[in-house]
């Protein structure tokens, strides 16, 4: 990997030590283990997160390709699947238990392991110290633990794919009683225990990481870096961490109660249940299955902002740099992210309009939910104005940033349908919901992540990714995403329920057979193009064009003041002092003014 990079960086740190002895020394001998495995360098931890995240993304994506095969070609058999999966795909047909396991794991993996762990883990680790001007995280050790708990969680979840009764298969929301009763569902046997254990480890990882990000941003900013001089990425990652720290424990508590119901005979979620497969009535009475949904969505809804806020931050930064313009309405951007963070905690029950929730309570949640559209609209208009009268460079990162805004608009607007309880009645749990959240938090968040990867790859590895492959990656993914998810809205309007593995028995939903085939085919093409991105990533680590200038994109922020391949400690000398905000692009006729430059006496005010 960037062996020489680290060595190079270190020699610089060492050389400068004679001059500046005021910061912690890094003379300790690094072995392979401390440098690559149990590393405490935030940049290495970032790389660990992104590579683990990519492996998960490929697995999660592959799962969707397999179940899309079933949805698109329900009449065909695929003998190759039987060769690989054995009895799960008997006769080349995907079995229902396997189908539901795939759906469940696809959701779990992508929501938690890729778009939470992979996205926040990668960019919070990489950018926080570099952009606020710190040598590392507040606690590099906890930071390392955060990655290794994430890794352990991954292993536990992965192992559930290999147990005899299969992984959890009740949907990623694991609603009890289905998830509590092994007799009601094969996947709710040991697979569910592994799911809960894996998520518990994941929550630990997320808390260790989150607390670290918050304390680093609040306490370790360099001289002159006031909160309002921070780039928007920092604000986004700060709010994300706050959301995670406050909401993940609630999920964990909900899961612990579920564990008790499963094994200790308690009745938190269980009541009045007769299991047909065993002809037995369970002793549990008085529990509430809906209680779990309240606990789950108290995390589950903030979770979607945990996924989208970092993407918003990355996009704001990339867009401003490549439009050569300050981000429009910096304070409004911070304010709207703050509003989203607060509202994120007050809207969870909009996932539960049809559970028999008190209609008055439902109406309160309608109001609060649609309120979120206001800060979201402000952000969209501010991005549009940032592009207006810019001088736009279409780097692959910038393309993904623009694609993000397009998708965020499309997916955000359908949120106005679903957040309104009247419309949620027919649309709840249909393909409309699938289309909505895949566009607004799935593909959008991926676009934000791609923008970030293409933009900061030169900082991570000292090399560029291949541009042409980047362009192909972008255009195929953007077109593909719309082709896959746009028509799904119509399936949802027809009331076509999600999580059905076969629609042929239904007079109301079998009119979409051709459409399903088209969607499946496009999904496979888009998946193949993501593999090309992964190839581009790894190839460029070793063989990409080398970065020859310190500041290849002409950015104002602090990470571009470090050496091309920074060592542990980031700046060889003293940490630079900050004199201005992060968005002085094209000010007073100058292309950009770095944050480290003092304000000149002639300079115009904004």
């Amino acid at each position: 990997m960037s062996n020489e990079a680290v060595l190079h960086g270190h020699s610089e740190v060492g050389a400068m030590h004679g001059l500046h002895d005021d910061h912690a020394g890094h003379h300790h001998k690094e072995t392979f283990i401390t440098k690559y495995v149990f590393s405490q360098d935030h940049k290495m931890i970032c790389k660990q997160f992104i590579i683990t995240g990519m492996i998960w993304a490929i697995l999660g994506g592959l799962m969707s390709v397999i179940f899309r095969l079933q949805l698109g070609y329900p009449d065909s058999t695929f003998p190759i699947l039987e060769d690989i999966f054995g009895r799960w795909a008997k006769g080349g047909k995907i079995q229902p238990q396997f189908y539901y396991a795939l759906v469940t794991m696809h959701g779990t993996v992508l929501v938690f392991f890729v778009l939470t762990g992979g996205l926040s883990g990668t960019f919070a680790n990489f950018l926080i110290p570099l952009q606020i001007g710190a040598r590392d995280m507040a606690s590099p050790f906890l930071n390392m633990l955060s990655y290794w708990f994430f890794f352990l969680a991954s292993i536990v979840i992965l192992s559930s794919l290999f147990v005899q009764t299969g992984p959890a298969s009740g949907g990623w929301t694991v609603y009890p009683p289905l998830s509590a009763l092994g007799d009601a569902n094969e996947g709710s046997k040991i697979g569910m225990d592994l799911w809960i254990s894996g998520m518990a480890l994941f929550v630990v990882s997320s808390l260790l990481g989150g607390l670290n990000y918050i304390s680093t941003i609040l306490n370790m900013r360099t001289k002159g870096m006031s909160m309002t001089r921070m780039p928007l990425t920092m604000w986004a990652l700060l709010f994300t961490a706050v959301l995670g720290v406050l909401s993940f424990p609630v999920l964990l508590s909900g899961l612990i109660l579920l564990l008790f119901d499963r094994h200790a005979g308690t009745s938190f979620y269980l009541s009045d249940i007769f299991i047909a497969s065993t002809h037995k009535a369970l002793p549990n009475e008085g529990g509430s299955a809906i209680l779990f949904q309240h606990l789950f969505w108290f995390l589950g809804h903030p979770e979607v902002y945990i996924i989208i806020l970092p993407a918003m931050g990355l996009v704001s930064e990339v867009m401003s740099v490549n439009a050569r313009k300050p981000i429009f309405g910096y304070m409004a951007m911070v304010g709207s992210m703050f509003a989203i963070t607060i509202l994120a905690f007050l809207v969870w029950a909009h996932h539960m309009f049809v559970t028999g929730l008190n209609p008055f309570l439902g109406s309160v949640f309608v109001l609060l939910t649609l309120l979120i559209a206001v800060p979201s609209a402000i952000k969209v208009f501010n991005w549009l104005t940032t592009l207006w009268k810019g001088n736009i460079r279409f780097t692959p990162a910038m393309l993904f940033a623009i694609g993000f805004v397009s998708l965020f608009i499309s997916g955000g607007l359908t949120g106005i349908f679903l957040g309104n309880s009247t419309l949620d009645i027919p649309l709840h749990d249909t393909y409309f919901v699938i289309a909505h959240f895949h566009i607004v938090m799935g593909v959008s968040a991926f676009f934000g992540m791609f923008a970030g990867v293409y933009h900061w790859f030169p900082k991570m590895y000292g090399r560029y990714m291949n541009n042409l492959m980047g362009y192909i990656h972008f255009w195929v993914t953007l077109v593909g995403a719309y082709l896959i998810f746009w028509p799904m809205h119509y399936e949802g309007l027809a009331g076509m329920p999600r999580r059905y593995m076969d629609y042929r028995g239904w007079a109301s939903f079998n009119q979409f057979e051709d459409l399903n085939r088209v969607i499946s085919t496009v999904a496979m093409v888009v998946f193949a193009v993501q593999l090309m991105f992964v190839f581009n990533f790894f190839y460029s680590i070793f063989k990409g064009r080398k970065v020859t200038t310190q500041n290849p994109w002409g950015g104002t922020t602090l990470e571009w003041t470090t050496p091309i391949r920074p060592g542990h400690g980031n700046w060889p000398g003293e940490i630079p002092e900050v004199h201005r905000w992060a968005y002085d692009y094209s000010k007073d006729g100058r292309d950009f003014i770095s944050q480290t430059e003092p304000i000149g006496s002639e300079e115009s005010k904004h």
Partner: protein
Amino acid sequence: MSNFFVLLILLLGFLITFQIAKASEYVSVLKGEKKAFEQHNRVNGFLMMVFLVLGLIGVYWCNELLRGKILGEAASNHGKDIDRMLYITISITGVVFVATQILLFWFAFKFQYSEKRKSFYFPHDNRLEFFWTVIPAIALTILVGFGLMYWFRITGDAPKDALQIEITGKQFGWIFRYPGKDNVFGKKYYKDIDDGKSNSLGLVWDDPATHDDIVVNSEAYIVVNKPVKFIINSRDVIHDVGLPHFRMKMDAVPGTPTTMWLTPLYTTEEMKKKTNNPNFEYEIACDQMCGQGHFTMRGVLKVVTEEEFILWKAKQKTNYALAFPEKEMQASAVKDDASKAVAAVAVSKDALASSK
């Protein structure tokens, strides 16, 4: 074998792309980085415009192609309200969608890099920001207003004369119960459930109110233009009574009964003509993941006229009679009822005919 070929073709395609991508880097070195960048920028800027135009055409075309497939007109009173709400929302969000997407891609195209252009330093403008805080707020107020008006109408109490039907979900099917002549649902207790003894709901036989309750599986009858109130239960896990043609839906939660009411506007026969589909049925789809048979959990609601309903109901045996067939008395009483009902319907038909 064909799998192998597909993989081979994919690999080949990938290798070619990779070689071209690699070559493009060398070309840009030869041409000069700046020139290559400007060329790429122009191509991507042009594609922005192409995407916008083709995308908007695609949206229109997709609508033409699929709008006939979304189940047509709503078939219940609430469904009509919901469809109205849908079109109000589509018209507001549709305008926003088209306008913002055009601005986005047009700006990207128009303000693409040019050596001559200087970016405009424009960090903020309070007036503009105020403007686009207030406009969305007003639009949303309208949507919330309409939404809640319909919401309270839909979730409000059912009319007093509504037909009452209990629906119970189980893995993987639906059980319906009618209260019988006394119009009272007898007591039930889940521990009394015994599928072998024809007591799938666990009716408590000690309660005489259960004796005339009628229990049927997978297919239930309701009356056109007459409000019907569903009392929804589950026997095992969470299910959901999804009625796509009525645009209605409600979860079935074990231990916590829920309710939903609506007035069906067209009989099944009328819908067969309306949709030109001789096999049309009002399907009940389970809309909450309930296990491996989730996708087979189908039920049917037959919407019929009042007379047909009376006739159908009269033919049904009570659950009590099915559970205790030895009790002849009960059975013959039912037969009596049936013949009386048939006679009653005949009379009312005559009456209808004469009134015409």
